[in-house]
């Protein structure tokens, strides 16, 4: 723990800290472009210069200098200020003065720092360098003349995304950042380079020229595109969400978000259900709320009523539906639309027990039937970190590119009963072994995977290495609220009245009763519905979500639902009155209080741990995995399918269509 003096104030810094980190600890702001705390140190922008004693009598790049005992650091001497002004002048030599037409304007590091260190005029009379635009795919727009070559994007692609397709070609004055042969970057995390770029060289293509940061209303929310529960900020103007950016949460998403999280938001204003519909003579006709409610009230179900939760719904919606069904004496609730019927008697057996953040600590990892890169991209980045610390990864399933080295054990699940020695050797020595079961294997190998907890010693004091990865944001909350039947979704097929809460993935031909769709997008569920009640998407309601590791998180409402659409819980509240079984809550707070009584874990936010008691299931695993549950990363739910950006990503990055660049 070296003691250093920063501007005369003595502080103690952790071993291995850099001078820049020491200055931050002392509360000094150090300007920087290339340094980023989640990437390796490059030291090439030179903006973070400070004066250090003892040392050579010249400014030093603080990001790449280790803090040492008895160091004296000066961050505000005339020499430091002069040096930084010099660096800024160099950076601005070739940087265009196009801030008024630059999308980064208002949130640009270079703009901000030039206020502090810019000279206000230029001594440079030569021509500026210009660089041609590079194609980087459907997400990232490039204006490479603005690039200051900090190489953050290169380091992100290599270290975090694991896709080494961005690089710097040529040299010196001619150096250019580009994707390999100017092809699309094939990463599901490529949107993060837009946030990392300290200038306007890499900007968001779908969001190009949409808005300025200062005119946006910022709402803190939770992402529903996968079950990781990425913490996001929805930036909206008027009634439209214009963009979605990640918030920092080291326990969940660090500061990354997948491209689907970021760019599916343009689907929120397309294909929306904005008025109730009732099916008459085989066709859906627009109706009023009263007509739609009357049509539901007319169904003579005699208590045979069910609710099927979709992948994107919040706990409040699920609880309101549950409460309504309870009024009729029914508890036919199910959320696993694709027919999964794994045992849910113990939530720990279907939870990501290790927690997302502690995945980094694992030293031996076995993936069973999961393509983490698509099912939970931000868990995949944690595994990359674990590998960097020395972890070894085995996987069962069809071989696919997970961005890191994996020892494949074949696609036959029966290998679980007879694990090869190379795996047992590694797990035998591992202090923190980890098994991750994906949706593909829950059907055939849940019991066998649970048995590994004993045979591989996954559960020990202070460590639980048994994990299940879900793909639906509503899954863990649904399981906590009882949205699971022993027979799976088949149990609801015979109900005379079924409420679909934004459920679009199930096989609707199997349902024999009247189908009521409560949701926000005109997707598969709405096509098959007899009565449609327009609801709110995740951006249009305050909702509680539980992520794969059992973390209860709450998002706020960013905008209002379109047209006649209402927040889902209010629909059930109003419907219950028409049906003569008024639900006992009039406000969202009252609903949440009732929900807390029903499910105490949902009463407070934060990580919930489930006591480890593994149910005794059959330990034989059978079946060969033909593929993974997600066939197309970019089109997994109704919002993505309505999003032109996601359609374009799917066509280009999954199906390999090429798009000629529009001539500019």
């Amino acid at each position, binding site marked *: 723990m070296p003691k250093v003096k920063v501007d005369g104030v003595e502080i103690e810094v952790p071993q291995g800290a850099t001078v820049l980190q020491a200055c931050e600890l002392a509360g000094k702001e150090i300007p920087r472009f290339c340094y980023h705390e989640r990437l390796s140190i490059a030291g090439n922008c030179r903006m973070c210069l400070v004066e250090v004693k003892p040392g050579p009598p010249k400014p030093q790049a603080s990001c790449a200098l280790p803090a040492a005992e008895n160091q004296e650091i000066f961050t505000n001497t005339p020499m430091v200020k002069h040096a930084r002004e010099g660096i800024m002048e160099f950076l601005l030599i070739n940087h265009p003065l196009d801030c008024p037409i630059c999308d980064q304007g208002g949130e640009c590091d270079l703009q901000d720092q030039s206020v502090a260190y810019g000279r206000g005029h230029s001594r440079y009379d030569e021509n500026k360098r210009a660089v041609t635009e590079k194609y980087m795919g459907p997400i990232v727009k490039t204006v490479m003349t603005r690039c200051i070559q900090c190489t953050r994007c290169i380091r992100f692609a290599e270290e975090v995304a694991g896709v080494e397709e*961005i690089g710097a070609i040529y040299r010196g004055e001619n150096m250019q950042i580009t994707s*390999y042969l100017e092809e699309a970057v094939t990463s599901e995390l490529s949107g993060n380079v837009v946030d990392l770029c300290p200038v306007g060289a890499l900007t968001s293509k779908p969001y190009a020229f949409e808005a300025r940061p200062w005119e946006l209303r910022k709402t803190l929310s939770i992402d529903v595109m996968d079950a990781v529960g990425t913490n996001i900020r929805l930036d909206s103007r008027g009634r439209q969400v214009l963009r979605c950016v990640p918030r920092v949460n080291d326990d969940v998403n660090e500061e990354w978000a997948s491209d689907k999280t970021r760019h599916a938001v343009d689907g929120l204003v397309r294909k929306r259900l904005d008025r109730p519909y009732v099916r008459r003579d085989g066709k859906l006709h627009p109706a009023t709320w009263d007509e739609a409610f009357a049509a539901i009230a007319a169904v003579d179900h005699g208590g045979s009523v069910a609710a099927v939760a979709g992948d994107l719904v919040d706990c409040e919606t699920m609880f309101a539906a549950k409460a309504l069904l309870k009024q009729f004496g029914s508890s036919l609730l199910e959320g696993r639309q694709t027919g999964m019927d794994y045992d849910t008697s113990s939530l720990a057996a279907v939870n990501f027990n290790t927690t997302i953040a502690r995945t980094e600590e694992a030293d031996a990892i076995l993936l069973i039937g999961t393509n983490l890169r698509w099912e939970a991209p931000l868990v995949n980045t944690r595994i990359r970190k674990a590998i960097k610390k020395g972890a070894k990864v085995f996987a069962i399933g069809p071989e696919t590119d997970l961005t890191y080295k994996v020892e494949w054990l074949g696609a036959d699940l029966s290998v679980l009963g007879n694990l090869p020695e190379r795996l047992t050797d590694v797990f035998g020595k591992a202090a923190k072994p980890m098994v991750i079961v994906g949706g593909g294997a829950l059907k055939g190998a849940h019991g066998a995977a649970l048995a590994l907890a004993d045979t591989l010693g996954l559960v020990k004091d202070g460590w639980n290495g048994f994990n299940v990865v879900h793909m639906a944001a509503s899954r863990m909350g649904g399981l906590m609220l009882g949205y699971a039947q022993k027979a799976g979704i088949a149990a609801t097929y015979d109900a005379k009245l079924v409420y679909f809460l934004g459920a679009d993935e199930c096989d609707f031909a199997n349902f024999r009763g009247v189908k009521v769709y409560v949701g926000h997008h005109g997707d598969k569920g709405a096509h098959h519905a007899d009565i449609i009640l327009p609801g709110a998407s995740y951006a249009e309601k305050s909702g509680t979500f539980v992520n794969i590791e059992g973390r209860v998180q709450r998002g706020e409402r960013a905008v209002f639902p379109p047209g006649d659409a209402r927040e889902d819980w209010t629909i059930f509240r109003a419907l219950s009155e028409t049906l003569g079984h008024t639900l006992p809550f009039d406000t969202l707070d009252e609903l949440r209080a009732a929900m807390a009584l029903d499910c105490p874990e949902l009463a407070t936010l934060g990580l919930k741990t489930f006591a480890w008691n593994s149910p005794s299931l059959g330990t034989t695993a059978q079946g060969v995995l033909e593929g993974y549950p997600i066939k197309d990363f970019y089109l997994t739910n109704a919002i993505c399918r309505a999003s032109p950006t996601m359609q374009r990503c799917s066509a280009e990055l999954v199906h390999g269509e090429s798009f000629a660049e529009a001539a500019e």
Partner: protein
Amino acid sequence: MADAAAIPDEAEVRARWGAFQWNEDSKAKRDAILSRYPAGREQSASIPLLDLAQRQVGAETQTQGWLPVPVIEFVAREIGVPYMRVYEVATFYTMFNLAPVGRFHVQVCGTTPCMLRGSDDVLAACKNKGLIKGKTTPDGLFTLTEVECMGNCSSAPMVQINDDNYEDLDYDRTIAILETLANGGTPKPGTQEPGRHTVEPKGGPTSLTAMVTENHDYRGEWNVASQGADA
């Protein structure tokens, strides 16, 4: 990079070079190169293998050689490195040609010492022989490039043609070298000044004169000289 050669049309290049493989000769050299680096450090072989590949392409096309994109990718696969990382190396070093060149790649130094000593005459000679900067002559023999300092300032002006340097040039000597090459001959590499061997001073040595004919130990004299200066 206004004067950089455009990276050639990809479909054609892929059709021609997509199946690039080491020939027997290169294979042996490849093994020798890879054996220099420990396992897991194959990336270190990027530069020598790119050079080897460029030479093989040169042998196959009767030119100085260049690196088509499929060949760069082939080298990357050889050492198990992402394409981008090897592509970065290939574009960084000017010795790797990203576009086809002629039989002789004439690289004229135009940096200050050579310019003061008459590199303009060298370029004029090239121009009069039909060489145009950045282009290959129609007969496919010469490609002319103006380059920065090659470290031969004491025998300036100079030109590098493929692996050899030709120094102490003037207009006539440059013409002579280009004509010899065009006629299939091999000009003498190094200095073109009669009587000069390497980069020794013109008109005989001006220092270390005692060393001209035999080895001479100056060390004793240094001490004497310094003592003398002190006194």
